[in-house]
């Protein structure tokens, strides 16, 4: 082994680790935060292992109502987009080549138009139509669910069409001709030959359109009107601050995805083995027990049972005792801080009028920003427990990124224990939109 090869190899390993850390790091951290009892999604300080965030999630009526609405809309969108997409793809494959690119452009345009525009134009169009028709149409055309379905269908059906087009390109049109020649009517040829060939694409199209509908925000936020889908409810929840129930939601989504992906993988492997003839040779497949164990349905059932067990186990878990303990610790800490403060006030009577000006100094960690403190406020060091300072403490930073990466630097700036009035704006009161996000390297006063 030559040296460059070895170093190239270690670079590749390093790079892969970095790559996977980048991909899966956030998911891992999110998963961990779902089980921390801290009322903020964070990993450190670790308080108690808890499953309460799952019940918080499930008891959130707004989200759950949104989920039902989303599923309803999703089913509607799939039911319309898949046939419409199929029809578009068939038209594309049948039309004469001169017109094909023109038709393609027309069909694909909705994907290129910003979702916001689609959303607004959907309301305007159906609103006008409803007003001019009057009567029952008016109610329907001002219904958020109806508007969202038609609004989403305008571009989601184009996704379905792309999937069908890709599959149709691999279809051998002589098969249809053969069916006709053998006496089938065009309808029979379509049902018996083309449709079975398209079946996998129908599955993918249904799945993809369901996902696209479910996760859509840009269009839905306009068309849903007063109603809520899961996505819009989630977005508004995040806007008013976050808690680990969102991490719990992420854990559920990850689990569902994993079960789906593993089952699908088992299914494709089995199919390949059978199609490729490897099944006849493999010991695993010739053995009846092996066949049952490797069957995708078995694997799916096993995973579901496993997940069900985890849920049951989790619901039995009681974190109250641990939380009580943490609460006590916190209270003790608080009291100690108060005590220190009282001592300091006695030592510095000349500063007395300033001290009560900050009576409600929020303790570190009650940061209202959505990311605030996700990674723990690592280094505020000396400056945090110095309630006597007139400057706002490092962690009350109101910027959206405030403290997201830890306020590393302020420890270096000596907290001005006795500032000259008027006080200089301290480094942390940085009004810039990135306030504190990239370290507040303060000019030392």
């Amino acid at each position, binding site marked *: 082994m030559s040296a460059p090869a070895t170093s190239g190899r270690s670079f590749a390993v390093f790079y892969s680790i970095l790559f996977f850390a980048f991909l899966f790091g956030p998911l891992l951290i999110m998963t961990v935060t779902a089980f921390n009892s801290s009322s903020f999604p964070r990993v450190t300080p670790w308080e108690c292992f808890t499953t309460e965030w799952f019940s918080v999630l499930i008891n959130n009526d707004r989200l759950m109502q949104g989920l039902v609405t989303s599923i309803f809309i999703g089913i509607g969108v799939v039911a319309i987009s898949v046939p419409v997409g199929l029809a578009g793809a068939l038209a594309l494959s049948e039309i004469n080549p001169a017109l094909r690119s023109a038709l393609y452009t027309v069909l694909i345009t909705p994907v290129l138009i910003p979702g916001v525009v689609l959303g607004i134009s959907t309301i305007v169009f159906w609103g006008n139509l409803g007003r001019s028709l009057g009567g029952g149409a008016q109610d329907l055309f001002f219904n958020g669910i109806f508007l969202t379905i038609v609004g989403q269908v305008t571009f989601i059906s184009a996704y379905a069409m792309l999937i069908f087009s890709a599959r149709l390109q691999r279809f051998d049109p*002589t*098969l249809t*001709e053969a069916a006709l*020649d*053998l006496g*089938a*009517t065009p309808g029979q040829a379509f049902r018996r030959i083309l449709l079975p060939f398209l079946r996998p694409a129908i599955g993918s199209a249904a799945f993809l359109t369901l996902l696209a509908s479910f996760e859509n925000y840009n269009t839905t936020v306009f068309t849903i009107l007063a109603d809520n889908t899961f996505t819009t409810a989630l977005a508004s929840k995040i806007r008013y601050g976050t808690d680990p129930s969102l991490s719990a939601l992420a854990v559920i989504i990850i689990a569902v995805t994993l079960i789906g992906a593993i089952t699908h993988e088992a299914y494709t492997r089995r199919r390949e083995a059978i199609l490729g003839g490897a099944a006849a040779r493999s010991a695993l497949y010739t053995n009846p027990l092996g066949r049952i164990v490797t069957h995708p349905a078995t694997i799916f059932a096993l995973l579901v049972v496993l997940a069900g067990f985890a849920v049951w186990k989790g619901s039995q878990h009681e974190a109250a005792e641990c939380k009580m303990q943490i609460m006590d610790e916190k209270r003790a800490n608080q009291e100690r801080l108060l005590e220190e403060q009282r001592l300091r006030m006695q030592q510095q009577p000349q500063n007395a009028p300033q001290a009560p000006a900050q009576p409600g100094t929020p303790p570190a960690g009650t940061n209202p920003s959505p990311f605030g403190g996700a990674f723990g406020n690592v280094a505020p060091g000396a400056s945090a427990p110095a309630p006597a300072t007139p400057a706002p403490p490092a962690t009350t930073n109101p910027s959206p990124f405030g403290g997201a990466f830890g306020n590393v630097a302020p420890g270096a700036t000596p907290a001005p224990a006795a500032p000259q009035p008027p006080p200089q704006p301290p480094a942390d009161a940085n009004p810039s939109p990135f306030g504190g996000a990239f370290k507040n390297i303060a000019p030392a006063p």
Partner: protein
Amino acid sequence: MSTRDVTLDHVSIRFGQHTAVNNALLNIAGGEFFSFLGPSGCGKTTLLRCISGFIEPTEGRVLIGGKDMKRVGPNKRPTALIFQNLALFPLMSVADNIAFPLEVRGVGRKERRKRADELLDLIALPGVGDKKVYELSGGQRQRVAIARALAVEPDILLLDEPLSALDLKLRQHMRTELRAIQQRVGLTFIYITHDQGEALTMSDRVAVMNAGVIEQIDDPLTIYEKPRTPFVASFVGETNSIPGKVVSQSGFDVSLDTALGRLVGRSAGGRQFASGQDVVLFVRPEQLMLDPGGKIAATVVKEEFEGSQRHLFLEAGNAALRVSRVGGGAELMAPGLAVKLNFDPGRSSVMPAAGA
């Protein structure tokens, strides 16, 4: 006139400016094995698709069993087409493939299966009904495609180069097989190929096509021995072509001046030539014989040995000649050797030179 007759009545098929089939006029008798032979792109598939109903003729009529097939769709014609790529349905089992024509006609499941098994027996593939198409070999697929077409109970079976994807051995085997099946079921077979061996071995009659035009329709022996046009002479089998000028003609015998001296050949189709007319004399390599008393003097360029045959390449009066002889026996001839050649005028053809 039987229901198995096919008549092409002045059929022309055009795609825009391009004429794919030009004025085809022929009558195929019921129960005949009829082949269309021609190079790639000469319009064979187009003609077949026209008979089976996928293309309407631009001009002329297609008659099957004496009935005009205008506006009769492919699913309503008494024909079954075996496609160039077979077009077996990949998602169905072999039995379902074969029973498909019955399924679309509303025949019950049990009856379908019974018929499929009968047809599998006919093509000598019993017991493969439950296999998938991709589990069969090329030759087996071939036969399944035939069985599926036969399930329609057609009057006319149309085959578009069905053997072209097979290897040589299998191809030769399938030729005999196809011919045997045709004789067993007694249908009209219309067979398309660019392989003259296939056309000559299987067919009752062959139509040779060139660039959309049918140049000659005859039985295989006549096509080979008595080609009517320069194209047929050179496309079907090997041939030596010797240009010359007509000196005189008495009956079929044409005497002409060539670079090899004055030769006598047979007028193709009994044509009358004017003296001085530019013509070409065609002689098959196996008709040219080494003969010490022959009139044609030539020099050996090389001799190649090819198993059952050996090919002698010669030069005579600046023209290249080719002689085929039986393979075994004597030593190969050395280059540079001077030889004399002869041929039977009755086995040669004299035709007007191209463009004359």
